[in-house]
């Protein structure tokens, strides 16, 4: 085979030109290995944050602490074969991960090693895992919308590219689902997505990958996965590795969406490491730099200025609360770092209201800046309508006798709310969202019986897709809601309502 002879020829060249050289290195010795932490003697010149090689199997670790007589290192991998006395070598380098388009569609661990059984990922680029956030001069304010395809969010808690928006709620309230919906909605929009699973159960991670695969989102997404089985050092590393992979794209002028699922588990892993490293525990036994751990991560998401390529990285960190307590340590930390939060309430879940977003407690501090002008206009009424409705709802619960106007408002509000619910993994395009919000706030639902609203929605969407695509496109593209555009929407809705009510 020609290939063999080529190999041999190259090899011969290398061999003949090779100059043997002695190697002068530093060797350290493993003093102690415990729960993913190793103490190393020697290697006096090793620096904080440097990557070391342990034993003869290339196990990597990082120096996190310098003690008088030894180094404290965290180990990124299976350390069960490591013994006291094993040699430790310096690499002189900091931690890097592979980065590039070759990672898209793959499931990897934070070191870039494949987890999906499809062979090694050979990447052109490498990126430092820990690097400083872009300085002020390189940034511009968040201006471009990032659409999640979820009506409530895109209308009232709109997200922009480069924003950090926290998704917070108790367990099983749909946090991951919202993040996945956002990822699914980026299909065909040229946004690279990264889903970082931090210490999740393997079953959950598998489910997520399946969902991404099923809705054809995997092809533009990187999954960085650590499970609860992985050593805490790897779990700690996961979000930073994902962030680095995202930065690679951002610096090339691309848009990135990254999901950190979830930072609560990340905090716990870091706490374990810190305690094992004998660092002094603070509030709730978390180390003193637990805030910095998360702020340094989230500050790396930004909208870069044109001079830096104009790329962006939008972060959706997820935090799990206990009993709805958003005032506890980690949640308050992250709320103060992010540009807003989407609050998922378990009582809304129990009532069957999905997505279970508590609009009152949710906010997007970027808000209107990141909305298209038409949606902005249309959503203003929505906020008012819902606010009014919630007020009245309280009132009505006490069975008070209501006058006709109030009752009408109540019924209107109920229908608006009903229309705002949405099933999972079904993100909607902007044009349809605008139409629905418009229909709701302009009273086109008032004549429809409450239990038929969802059916109405289904049929309307189908109708819009088949007959009014150009109108939908106009809604997405145009700069303002002109009279004539509004008229057209009204006409379409009136005609549709007639048909619907007649058919019913």
């Amino acid at each position: 085979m020609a290939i063999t002879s080529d190999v041999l020829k190259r090899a011969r060249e290398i061999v003949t030109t090779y100059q043997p050289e002695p190697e002068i290195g530093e060797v350290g010795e493993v003093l102690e290995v415990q729960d993913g932490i190793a103490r190393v003697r020697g290697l006096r010149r090793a620096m904080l944050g440097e990557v070391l090689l342990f034993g003869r199997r290339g196990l990597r670790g990082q120096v996190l602490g310098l003690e008088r007589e030894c180094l404290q290192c965290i180990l990124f991998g299976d350390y069960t074969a490591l013994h006291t006395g094993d040699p430790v070598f310096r690499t002189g380098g900091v931690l890097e991960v592979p980065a590039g388009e070759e990672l898209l569609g793959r499931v990897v661990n934070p070191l870039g090693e494949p987890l999906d059984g499809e062979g090694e990922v050979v990447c052109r680029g490498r990126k430092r895992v820990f690097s400083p956030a872009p300085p002020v001069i390189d940034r511009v304010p968040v201006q471009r919308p990032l659409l999640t395809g979820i009506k409530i969010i895109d209308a009232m808690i709109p997200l922009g590219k480069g924003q950090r928006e926290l998704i917070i709620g108790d367990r099983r309230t749909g946090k991951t689902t919202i993040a996945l919906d956002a990822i699914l909605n980026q299909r065909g929009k040229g946004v690279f997505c990264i889903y970082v699973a931090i210490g999740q159960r393997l079953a959950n991670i598998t489910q997520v990958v399946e969902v991404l695969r099923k809705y054809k989102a995997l092809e533009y997404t990187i999954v960085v996965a650590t499970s609860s089985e992985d050593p805490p050092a790897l779990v700690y590393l996961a979000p930073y590795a994902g962030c680095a992979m995202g930065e690679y794209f951002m610096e090339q002028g691309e848009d990135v969406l990254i999901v950190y699922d979830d930072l609560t588990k990340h905090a716990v892993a870091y706490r374990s490491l810190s305690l094992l490293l004998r660092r002094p525990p603070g509030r709730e036994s978390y180390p003193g730099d637990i805030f910095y751990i998360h702020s340094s991560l989230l500050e790396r998401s930004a909208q870069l200025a044109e001079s830096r390529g104009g790329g962006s990285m939008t972060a959706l960190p997820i935090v799990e609360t206990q009993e709805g307590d958003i005032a506890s340590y980690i949640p308050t930390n992250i709320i103060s770092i992010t540009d807003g939060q989407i609050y998922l309430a378990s009582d809304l879940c129990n009532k069957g209201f999905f997505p279970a977003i508590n609009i009152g407690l949710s906010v997007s501090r970027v808000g209107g800046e990141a909305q298209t002008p038409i949606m902005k206009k249309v959503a203003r009424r929505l906020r008012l309508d819902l606010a009014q409705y919630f007020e009245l709802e309280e009132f009505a619960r006490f069975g008070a006798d209501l006058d006709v106007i109030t009752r009408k408002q109540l019924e209107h509000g109920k229908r608006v709310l009903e229309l705002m619910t949405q099933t999972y993994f079904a993100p909607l395009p902007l044009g349809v969202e605008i139409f629905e919000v418009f229909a709701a706030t302009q009273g086109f639902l008032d004549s429809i019986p409450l239990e038929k609203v969802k059916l109405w929605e289904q049929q309307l969407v189908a109708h819009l897709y088949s007959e009014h695509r150009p109108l939908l496109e106009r809604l997405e593209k145009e700069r303002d809601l002109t009279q004539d555009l509004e008229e057209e929407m009204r006409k379409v809705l009136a005609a549709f309502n007639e048909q619907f009510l007649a058919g019913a």
Partner: protein
Amino acid sequence: MRDEERVRVVTPFPLTGEQKDIISAKLSRIIPKPFTIEEEVDPSLIGGVVILWGELLIDCSVKTQLERLRERILREEGFSHGDHQ
């Protein structure tokens, strides 16, 4: 503060007197205090010598050179299918 006095010298064959002298002479240029040589035999080195003083490792073994050669060869790009379309 390095471990003074003790220097581990590993060779594939037992040291001859001549070899020991050579080693002592050279090492004394970099090791300030008097030291003693602990000899060790490791045939896997094939040739040359490995010296361990405290945390300083001086690797002059043939084995390591072979390993480096091997790495060099395997790291070469252009061996992939792309070249042979």
